[in-house]
């Protein structure tokens, strides 16, 4: 019996470890790639080379990477803030002050998740032009201030929030918006952390819409830069890998710092 259990454990670890290696290996390779030349990478070399500095030099001398990185940061941070605020407010509104009309609206809102973005691009572009926001980061941020997925996510989370606390605050004479800001939000920190990771992920990696809205070199984002780099007849893979590492770092940092909350946050939203 003991031996059987032992064997099971070993199998379990072996399974987990192989999943882990499979998941992490491409990252390892990416780092190796950044230290090699394009020809070496194409030929399939998987040991560290000495090209990191030349690759970095090439990247930073050909493109304003600092500026582009900052653009990405600015857009993502503002988008995340907006999405957290407006989506959580909406989720709260739908959950705590429900009515027949609003439930119907909620259904329609959820349906919009299913429309592919490509179908909306042209009318959306027309709108941005009429607002005079072309080639402007505001054009990107404004259109993504609300995420339907997050409205849904927040509403699910608020379901588990103890309503008595809100009642008590009302009796104390607190206004509804103040209750939301100073009682509900702090209590749901984990949910916000989870939502922040999700929002940051989508905003940081978004590509098609920034491509359409942004026009000049100064406004570009990291994803657009990487796409440009990979489009050459003969792509400089070492340089591309270096750029990719730079663009992945913030994602990994944010996930590492918020990951504890992430799991708890999702847990909260999934309680019924």
């Amino acid at each position, binding site marked *: 019996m003991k031996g059987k259990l032992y064997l099971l454990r070993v199998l379990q670890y072996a399974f987990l470890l192989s999943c882990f290696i499979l998941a992490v290996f491409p990252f390892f390779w990416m780092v190796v790639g950044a230290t090699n030349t394009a*020809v070496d990478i*194409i*030929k399939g070399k998987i040991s560290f080379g000495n090209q990191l500095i030349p690759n970095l030099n090439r990247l930073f001398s*050909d493109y304003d990477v600092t500026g582009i990185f900052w653009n990405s940061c600015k857009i993502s941070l503002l988008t995340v803030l907006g999405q957290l605020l407006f989506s959580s407010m909406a989720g709260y509104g739908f959950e705590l002050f429900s009515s027949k009309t609003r439930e119907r609206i909620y259904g329609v809102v959820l349906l919009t998740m299913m429309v592919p973005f490509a179908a909306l*691009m*042209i009318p959306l*572009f*027309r709108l941005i*032009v009429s607002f*005079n926001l*072309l*080639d402007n980061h505001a054009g990107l941020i404004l259109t993504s201030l609300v995420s339907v997925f997050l409205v849904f996510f927040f509403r699910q989370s608020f379901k588990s929030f103890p309503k008595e606390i809100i009642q008590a605050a009302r009796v104390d004479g607190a206004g509804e918006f103040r209750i939301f800001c100073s009682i509900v939000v702090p209590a749901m920190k984990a949910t916000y952390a989870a939502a922040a990771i999700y929002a940051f992920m989508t905003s940081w990696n978004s590509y*098609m819409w920034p*491509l*359409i809205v942004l*026009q*000049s*070199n100064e406004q570009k984002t990291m994803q*657009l830069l990487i*796409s*440009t*780099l*990979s*489009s*050459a*007849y*003969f*792509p*400089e893979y070492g340089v591309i890998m270096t750029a990719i590492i730079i663009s992945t770092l913030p994602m990994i940092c944010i996930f590492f710092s918020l990951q504890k909350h992430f799991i708890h946050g999702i847990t909260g939203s999934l309680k019924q």
Partner: protein
Amino acid sequence: MRRWLPLFLVLLLLLTILGTTVFAAEKSGKITIWAWDPNFNIPVMAEAKARYQKVHPKVEIEIVDMAKADVEQKLNTVLASGAREGLPDIVLIEDYNAQKYLQAYPGAFADLTKKINYKDFAEYKTELMTLKRKIYGVPFDSGVSALFYRKDILAEAGFKPSDLNNITWDRFIEIGKIVKEKTGVAMVGFDTADGGTMRIMMQSAGQWYFDAKGDPHIVKNDAIREAFLTYKKLVDSGITKTTSGWNEWVAAFNKGETATVLTGCWIIGSIKAEASQAGLWAVAPTPRLNLKTSVNYSNLGGSSWYITAKSRNRQVAEDFLNATFAADRDLYQKILVEQGAIGSYLPSQNGPAYTEADPFFDGQKVYADFAAWMREIPPVNYGLFTYEADSAMMTVMPDYLAGKINLETALKRAEDQLKNQIAF
């Protein structure tokens, strides 16, 4: 004092007029240019910009570097939305797409018939940008096709350079078999999703997927039938090395795994990227099909510069292109040497860079060859639906090559798919 005032005003007015005329002579304003490929078109344009700005320092030029698909996506979105804003002044358009954009977005591009001396450009290029007798755009690089081959490998199999001159595809396959047998090296790289070779074959016979009226012309098209048969012979002969995607295909000849490369001349940069193979390469004209109409010259790819009609600085943009790509012979020498870019501006082709022997090709004057072949390319109207047709061809190709369907069925299916795709 009061008496002087009118005089003073008149003087001021005169000065202003004088000032503006002086300024008008001096070009100024900002133009934006969209293009793709940071190793090719972008540095070429940067060179043109630097040369122009030496003469006109007040003109600001921004070159926006994007992926090719991205340029096309942006251009379509902005044009379709009908917005006046958001377009560049100059945009690079691939020749296969030119007629499509010109006809789908009437009035979007500037008519340059009277602004550019088109006699200076290769005929087949201007043909592509002509719509209802008006000519749009300034021709840029040529995709004149060529057979690049490894002299050393072919010599090992017993072939002299003259054995590869002006051959047919059948001869090419025969040579390939011997090369494969004697050296073990594959003759040519082959990508299952790539329609490039098909286009080279068609144009060498002066044919395209469409007839003169613009209707699909596949089942009864000699050149396409012959091309399909040749494709199958190529694959069945076992002389190809299968690759998937661009990088693998490039890697195959960089690693010396194929004896030849058959594509547009713009590939030269990628061939030269493998410095260890210097001196081993040579170039011959493209093989021709088994048809009387087929010649040993063809084309793959190539693109041209277009000015948008609503450009705020249209005159500056026109002047810029006229002074650089339609006049500056030295510019063409420079980009030939640095980027391997072969322009279709004929007067540039007796310049020094074109007549020089290239040590990478063991002293062969490859650029002079390209220039000579370029004049012989049969002009073809690519029409509106090259990509739809390409997709229809290559969708049936795997089944045809595997022997699951015969030629008639394959062509019929392709034509049906194409007809459906281009319905309006």
